[in-house]
C-alpha cells in the first residue's frame, strides 16, 4: 500500500533527523569551557568562564540540553545567539530565503538540463556522447568554489557583465535578483549538472539494454514513444536518486558560493558563526539543512513510488 510505504519512510526520516541532530549537538555543545572562552575571550578568568558556563546552561548533562533544544524546535524556538543574544529564528529568517532561492533555482535548472543532456547522450551515442562524457568528468571533478572564483574572474573582473557580490531579493527587484544570483547559480550548476547527467545517462543506457525494451521495439512501437513512455519511466528511479544526491551536494556548495559572492545566506552565516563559536546559530543551520534534505528525499520517494509500481511493494 502506498500510504504505508510513505509512512515508513516518514518514520525513517524522523529517525535520521534525530540521530544527526543529536550527534551534531553533542559534538558542538560538548566543549563547555571552550564555548565560554570563545564568548568571553581566550584570556578569561576560570571563575568567569565557570559563571558563563552556568549562564549559558552548558553545565547540564548533554542529553538534558538536547532534550530542551528539541522541545524548543518543536515549539518553534531555536534558541539565542551566544554573542548577540538575537533569536536564532530571527537570524535565520532573513537568510534562509537567500540560500533557498539559490539552491532551488539551481535544482530546477539541474533537473531540466541533466535530463536533456543525459538522455540525448545515451540515445545518440557517437561524438555527442563522448563529448558529454568528457565534459561531465571535468565538471564534476573541479570543486564548486574554484568554478565560482573562475566565474568571478571571467564575468566580473575580466569582462564585467554580472555583479560579483551582493544579493537583491526577488520580491524587491526580479531583474536585479536574477543578475545577482546568475553567477552563483552557474557556479553550482556546472558541477551539479555534470554529476546528475552522467548518472542519468547511465540509467538510460541500462534500461535500453533490457529485454522488455527490445520486445516493445519488436512489437512495432516507434523510438520516440518508446523512449518517453517506457524507457524514461524505468530510468526515473535511479534518476531521482541521482537528483536527491545532487541536492545534498548543492547545499554544501552553497556555503562556498555564498562566501565568494557575498550572499547573505545561511552558509555564510554558518561560516562566521562557527569561527566565532556561536554554537546555537550553527545548530539551527544544521537543523534547517537536514530538514530540507529530508523533505527533498521524501518528495523523491513519493515521485518514485508513483512512477515505479514495483517499489511500492517494499
Amino acid at each position, binding site marked *: 500500500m502506498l500510504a504505508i510505504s510513505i509512512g515508513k519512510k516518514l518514520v525513517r526520516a524522523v*529517525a*535520521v533527523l534525530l*540521530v*544527526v541532530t543529536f550527534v551534531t549537538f553533542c*559534538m*558542538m555543545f560538548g*566543549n563547555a569551557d*571552550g*564555548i565560554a572562552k570563545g564568548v568571553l575571550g581566550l584570556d578569561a578568568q576560570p571563575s568567569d568562564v565557570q559563571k558563563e558556563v552556568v549562564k549559558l546552561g552548558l553545565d547540564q548533562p548533554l542529553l538534558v540540553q538536547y532534550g530542551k533544544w528539541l522541545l524548543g524546535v518543536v515549539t518553534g524556538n531555536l534558541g539565542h545567539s551566544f554573542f548577540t543574544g538575537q533569536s536564532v529564528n530571527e537570524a535565520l529568517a532573513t537568510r534562509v530565503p537567500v540560500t533557498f532561492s539559490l539552491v532551488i533555482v539551481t535544482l530546477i535548472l539541474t533537473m531540466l538540463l541533466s535530463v536533456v543532456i543525459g538522455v540525448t547522450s545515451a540515445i545518440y*551515442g557517437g561524438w555527442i556522447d563522448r563529448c558529454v562524457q568528457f565534459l561531465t*568528468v*571535468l565538471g564534476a*571533478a*573541479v*570543486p564548486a*568554489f*574554484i568554478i565560482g*572564483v*573562475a566565474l*568571478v*574572474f571571467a564575468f566580473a*573582473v575580466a569582462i564585467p557583465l554580472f555583479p560579483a557580490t551582493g544579493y537583491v531579493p526577488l520580491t524587491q527587484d526580479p531583474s536585479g535578483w536574477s543578475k545577482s544570483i546568475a553567477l552563483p547559480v552557474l557556479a553550482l550548476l556546472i558541477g551539479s549538472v555534470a554529476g546528475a547527467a552522467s548518472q542519468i545517462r547511465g540509467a538510460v543506457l541500462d534500461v535500453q539494454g*533490457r*529485454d*522488455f525494451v*527490445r*520486445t*516493445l*521495439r*519488436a*512489437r*512495432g*512501437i516507434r523510438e520516440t514513444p518508446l523512449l518517453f513512455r*517506457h524507457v524514461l*519511466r*524505468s530510468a526515473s528511479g535511479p534518476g531521482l536518486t541521482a537528483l536527491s544526491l545532487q541536492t*545534498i*551536494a548543492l547545499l*554544501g556548495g552553497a*556555503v*562556498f558560493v555564498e*562566501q*565568494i559572492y557575498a550572499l547573505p545566506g545561511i552558509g555564510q552565516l*554558518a*561560516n562566521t558563526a*562557527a*569561527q566565532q*563559536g556561536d*554554537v546555537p546559530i*550553527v*545548530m539551527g543551520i*544544521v537543523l534547517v*539543512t*537536514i530538514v530540507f*534534505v*529530508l523533505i527533498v*528525499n521524501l518528495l523523491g520517494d513519493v515521485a518514485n513510488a508513483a512512477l515505479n*509500481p*514495483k517499489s511500492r*511493494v517494499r
Partner: protein
Amino acid sequence: MSSRPTTESVLARSRQPRRRRPLIIRLLVNPLGAITIAFLLVVVVLAVFAPLIAPIPPNATQLSDVNALPFSPGHLLGADQSGRDVWSRLVWGTQPTIVGALIVLSVSVIVGVTGGLVAGFFRGTTEATGNFLSDVIMSLPGIVLLIALYTLTGPNIPVAMAVFGILVAPTYFRLVRAVVVGVRSELYVDAARVVGLSNVRIIGRHVLWAVRGPVIIQSAFIIAAGIGIQAGVDFLGLGDPRQPSWGSVMQDSFNNIYNNPVGVWWPALLISLTILSLVLLGNVLRDELQSIGVKPLSKAQQRKLAARAGKSFGRPAPQHSSAIAVRDLRIGYPQRDGEILEVVHGVDLEVKPGEIHGLVGESGSGKSQIAFSTLGILPREAVILEGSIWLDGQDLLADRKKGAKARGRKIGYVPQEPMSNLDPSFTIGAQLTYGLRAVQSISKKDARAKLLALLGRVGIRDPEQVFRMYPHEISGGMAQRVLICGAIASDPDIIVADEPTTALDVTVQAEVLELLRELSRERGLAMILVTHNLGVVADLCDVVSVMRNGLIVEEADVESLFAEPKEAYTRELLDSSRSVEIIEEAS
C-alpha cells in the same frame, strides 16, 4: 530455468585476452594513465622535497614585492598582497594536502570497507543497521558538518579530515556491501562452504578478491574528494592560519582579485589539475579492471564494412510466395582489434504461409541472430554484412523504414524469458492496449474488448483481473501467455518465437506448445520457432532447419529429418536427444 549462453555472451567472453599484463604496465601504456600518473608523481615529489624545491620559506614576506607579477625575479608565479612568494607557498602547502588526503583515505577505507564486508557477509540486522547508519551519514552535506566540527576543535585539519573520512565511508560501504552480497550468492562460494572452508577463509580467498577492484577505483575518487574538501575548508578560513595551504593561497588571491587578478589562476590550476588527474586515473583504472563492451559502429562505419564485404544489398525478390524468405544473410560483430567476427555465414531460409518452421541448433549456432534480424532487433553492435529478408514483397534489410513498419503488424515476436520482457511500470492491460493501438488504428474500447477476448483464448482464466495487474504480480506461465497475446493481437502473418518454452516448467510448456499449434492452425499463422530442444521440434514443427556454427547444415520436413537424417551432425543431435528420453523399450 536454464541459463544457456547466447552467441553474444560467448563472443563477449572470447574477447577477453588470455594472459593479462600486470596492472601497472597496462596503466602506463594507456596515454591518459601515463599522463595522470606522471603529474601525480610530480605533486608527490613537491611534497616530499618541499624544503629543497621551494626557494623561499613559506611565511617570509618581502614588502617591496607586493603583488609582483609572474616571472618577475625571485617569484616564478608572482607574489601575493603581503609580498609572499606564491610558488613557495604552494610547494610548502603540498605536503599537508597529501597527508590530509591520505587521512581521509585510510579512515574511510577502514570504516567503509570493513563495514561493507561485515554487513554484506552476515546480512540480517547487521546489514540493516549498516544501511541506516550509511543513510544517516550521507544525508548531511560534508562541509556543514565540518563547519560544526570547527566549533569544537578549532582549526585542526587532521581531525577534520578524519571526520570527513567517516563522512565518505558510506561510498565504500555501499560498494563493498553490494559486491559481497553478489559474491555470496555465487555458486563458487556455496561450493567452498560445502568443501568445509571456514568463513574467514571464504572471505579472504573469494570475497576480498572480488572487492579489490572496485575499492581501488573508488580510492582514486576519494582521494580527489579529500583534496577538494580540504582546499575548500582552508578557503573558507577554517584551516590553520600559520601554515600555507593550497586553499589558503586561493583565499588570499581571491581576496586580492581586483588588484592582482591573475593570482587566482595558480592555486586554482594546481588544485583542479590534481583533482582531475586523480579522477581521470580512476576512470582509466575502471576501464582496465572491469571489462568494457566494444563500442557499436556508427552507420557510416557499418556501410563501409558492408561494402568491404564485397556484396551489396537489394536483390530481386524470390519468385514463389512465402510468408518470409531470408537470403544470403551474413551477420558479424566488431572485435577489440577492429576486425569483424562473422557469426552467421550466409543463411537461406524460407517459410511458407501457415508453416511452422523449426530453427534448431546448440548455443552459439546463431539461430537467435537470424530471428532477431527478421524483427530488426539485433543488438546495436551487430553488423549485417549482407543479405535480404523478404516479407510481403519487400526487402526489410534494404529499406529500414519498411522493416520498421512491418514490425508488430506483419511479423510478431514471442521472446524467451517471460518476466523480463514485460514493462514493470505498467499494468498488463495498459501495455497490451498501447502496443495494439501503436500498430492498428482502433479505439481504446475496441482494443480492450479484443484483448480481453484474446487473453481468454490464450488460456488466462480471469482476463479482467489480469488486465489490472502488474507484471511482478503474475506467474511465469501467465506472463508467457500475455506475451503471446501481445504478439498475435495485431493479426500478423508470421510469428518469430525465440525459445518460447525454455524458461517454463515442462507441464506448462506442453500447454503453451499446444496453444501455439492451435493459433497457427486457426489463423493461418506461419512461425519461425527457434529452439535447442528436438522434442519441441518433433511436437510442433512442419519443417526443420538445423544450424551449426552460423550455417544451416540440413533442412527437411520434420518426418524425413527425424527418420532419415542426412548429416552426421543431425544424427549426433538426435542420438544425444534420444539417449535422455523416456521411450519405452520394445519388449
